Every structure is written in C-alpha cells, then in structure tokens.
C-alpha cells in the first residue's frame, strides 16, 4: 500500500481513467488483505467471497459491504488500545447508529485528504468562516454528533469563525454584522448542513429582514437532500434562495458519509459531484448487483483508500445515483462525476443533517 506520507500528497483530481483504475485496484486489493488479517469478521467475509483476491482484475470484483453492517456489528482492524476515537452516525431516535472505529493513523489520513480536497475549492489561504449552525452543536457533548464532527473537521479551513445561529437556533444578526464589518472585502467561507441552512439560516434572514452581503462567500454544504426533497425543494431553488437572500453564488454541495470520512465528493462549478483520487463511485444494479452503465441509475458503491482501522474501504450505500462521465467534465477535474437521485425505497432514514429532529 502507498505509505501514509505519500498518499495524502497526491493531487485530488489529477489521475486519468486507466491509471486510476490500476491504482485503486492495487491499493484496494491490498487493503482487503490488510483487513482480513486484522478483523476476523472481515476475514470470514473475504473467504466466502467468490473471487479470490489475487484473481480480482479490478476493484469492482472485490467484496462490497452494505453500510448497515456497521450498525449491526463492531468491525475494527485495530487493537482496542490503539483506538483513538469512535465516530457514530447519530441516527434518529429508535435507530441503531453506525460505529466507526478510528486509530490515530486513519484519523490523520482523513483530515489530510479532506484538507487537500477542500483546498481545491477554497484555495490555500484559511478564510474567515461563518458556520451556518448553532454553537450549541459543539458546546453540548450530548449533541456532539456527525454534525458537530463535520463542523469541527471543516474548521481547519477557518482563520476566525462565528456561528450564524444562537443556541435557540435563531439568527444571530448582531454577531453576523460585526463579523462581516471586520472582514469587509475578504473571501468568506460558509459551511453548514443543507437542511439547517434552508430551515434556519435562509428562513432566519427572511424573518429578521436582514440581507447581508455575502457575495464574497464560498458555501460548502452537505448532509443530504432528503428533508428538502420531502418539501420538494430542488437544488436550483436552494441556490436561488441563497443568491436572493444573501448574494452567495459560489455554492458547493458535497456527498459523503461518516463511514468514509475524508473522501468527500464535491460538487463542481457545473453542478457535478466529483470522485477524488483516493476514492471512487461504482453504480450497481439493485436486481443483481452487476455494474451499471454510464447514465444508468442504481445503488452507489463507494470505495476509499483511507479506512485502515475498520474494514469500510468498499461499501454499498442505500443511495441511488448515476455516473455522468469520467475525466471529461467541463470543469477540468479528472475522475468520475455523478449525481445522486435519492435514497432507495424502504431504506432506513439516515444522514448527517437528518440528525436534527424538529420539535413540533
């Protein structure tokens, strides 16, 4: 496997199709073996898999684990003494949560790769940051969930930061005004979860009758569309709302999950989600799990080179999407680009921003 120093220093979108396929196949095959030797449960999965590791012609032939396996089992490839932290996807009440075991190496790898990917969109400079969420998410350990972890993970891009919402989830107009006065003329990094932005930030601006000038803003948001899709809010509507309420035009959604923190799929200027060098998406047909063609919808499999402390390197999600192309997006970034269609029927409700339950 590529060593831990070299791996994060690769360019995020610089590897062409054939080279990337060979690279991922070699790395992921070795990762399968790595986990089989360290995680007995994974070892049994691998031995039951029809294709032998050395016979796998591409990483698409390697075993893919359903994400919900991490809810039902404690899967780890490190000794308990080496555990650094355990990430959980905070499912809503009554749901089981995923438990992802991280050691220091995997955790550092995640941070470094995330920094490389996001750096492509924000630039090298750390920027003043407005967190479109409530400070309570960080302050209250009981609330510290995927949302808190996301905010913290993205805080390394900040030079100075302010929360847009107070602890009661109301817009903190005074704090925002003071922050924007101080950073006039500078690029500003805005970060938040899609649903929270819609429900509390955009709505809060309307309510307060406050129209901040965020035309220098770069917004990165994630956490899934489910709640907005339920309200029939489209991507276009979301972007139009942001443009109108505060003038922000550079808006990048990202697709990612706690099971593969670090390798997020960023939306480019042309509205396409992009797979970075360290990971890939494969679309599988739900009937027989065969690999779907370009433009054909199916289940999204995500493969990532980062998970070393838990066998989450190849996962079958419950999200539906389709590949739009590879290496030829007009934005110039190499790698596959794709779109998400939604969650499959009868799948459990999950996702980062979905961790917030609105009280009636």
């Amino acid at each position: 496997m590529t060593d831990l120093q070299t791996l994060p220093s690769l360019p995020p979108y610089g590897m062409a199709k054939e080279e990337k396929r060979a690279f991922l196949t070699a790395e992921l095959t070795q990762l399968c073996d790595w986990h089989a030797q360290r995680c007995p449960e994974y070892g049994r999965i691998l031995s039951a898999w029809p294709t032998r590791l050395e016979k796998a012609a591409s990483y698409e032939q390697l075993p893919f684990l359903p994400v919900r396996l991490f809810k039902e089992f404690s899967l780890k490839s490190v000794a308990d003494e080496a555990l650094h932290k355990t990430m959980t996807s905070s499912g809503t009440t009554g749901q089981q949560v995923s438990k992802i075991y991280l050691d220091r190496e995997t955790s550092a790898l995640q941070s470094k790769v995330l920094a490389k990917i996001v750096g492509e969109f924000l630039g090298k400079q750390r920027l003043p940051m407005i967190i479109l969420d409530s400070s309570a998410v960080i302050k209250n350990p009981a609330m510290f969930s995927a949302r808190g972890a996301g905010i913290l993970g993205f805080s390394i891009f900040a030079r100075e930061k302010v929360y847009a919402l107070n602890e009661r989830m109301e817009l903190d107009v005074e704090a925002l005004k003071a922050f924007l006065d101080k950073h006039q003329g500078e690029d500003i990094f805005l970060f938040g979860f899609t649903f929270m932005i819609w429900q509390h930030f955009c709505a809060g601006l309307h309510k307060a009758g406050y129209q901040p000038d965020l035309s220098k803003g770069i917004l990165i948001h994630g956490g899934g569309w489910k709640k907005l899709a339920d309200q029939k809010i489209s991507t276009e509507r979301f972007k139009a709302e942001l443009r109108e309420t505060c003038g922000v035009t550079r808006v990048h959604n990202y697709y990612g999950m706690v099971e593969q923190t670090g390798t997020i799929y960023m939306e480019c200027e042309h509205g396409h989600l992009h797979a970075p060098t360290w990971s890939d998406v494969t679309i599988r047909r739900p009937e027989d799990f065969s690999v779907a063609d370009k433009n054909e919808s199916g289940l999204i499999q995500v493969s990532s080179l980062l998970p070393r402390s838990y066998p989450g390197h190849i996962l079958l999600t419950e999200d539906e999407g389709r590949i739009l192309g590879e290496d030829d997006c007009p934005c110039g970034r190499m790698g596959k680009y794709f779109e998400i269609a939604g969650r499959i029927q009868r799948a459990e409700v999950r996702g980062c921003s979905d961790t917030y339950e609105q009280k009636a």
Partner: protein
Amino acid sequence: MTNLEKYVKAFSEALEVPESEVSTLVYGESAAWDSVGHMTLIAALEDAFDIMVDMDDIIDLSSFEKGKEILAKYDVEL
C-alpha cells in the same frame, strides 16, 4: 516573556493543563487535547506569535515537541 514561555503558556491556557504538564502532551492522548482543544490551541499559537499556520501544519501539529518544529518554519525560535 521568552518565546518558549509564550509557547508553554499557549498550550496551558488553550488546553487547560498546568504549565508543568504541557511538555509531554500528545494530540488525542488526553481529554484536554481533543479536536475542539486542537483548534483552540492553534488559535492561541497564532495569536501569541502573530502567525498564520497552514492547513497541513495544523494537521501535523500532533505533540508539544512537534509543534516546536512546526513553529520553526514560521521563523519562531523557541
């Protein structure tokens, strides 16, 4: 105050650990130095030495000792 004193003070105040104990600190090994404490520490170091630490260095700053090497890159001699 010497630079080393400022450095020790930044660790002590940001991570809420007595000055006598900071020299053995390693990221993630104590409750004080978790991911929240880490960003507080970076902010404290940036204030103390009037520098702006790169993203790569924020991630690499994983111990009291390692931090000294990193600050040297910003012409801060301890």
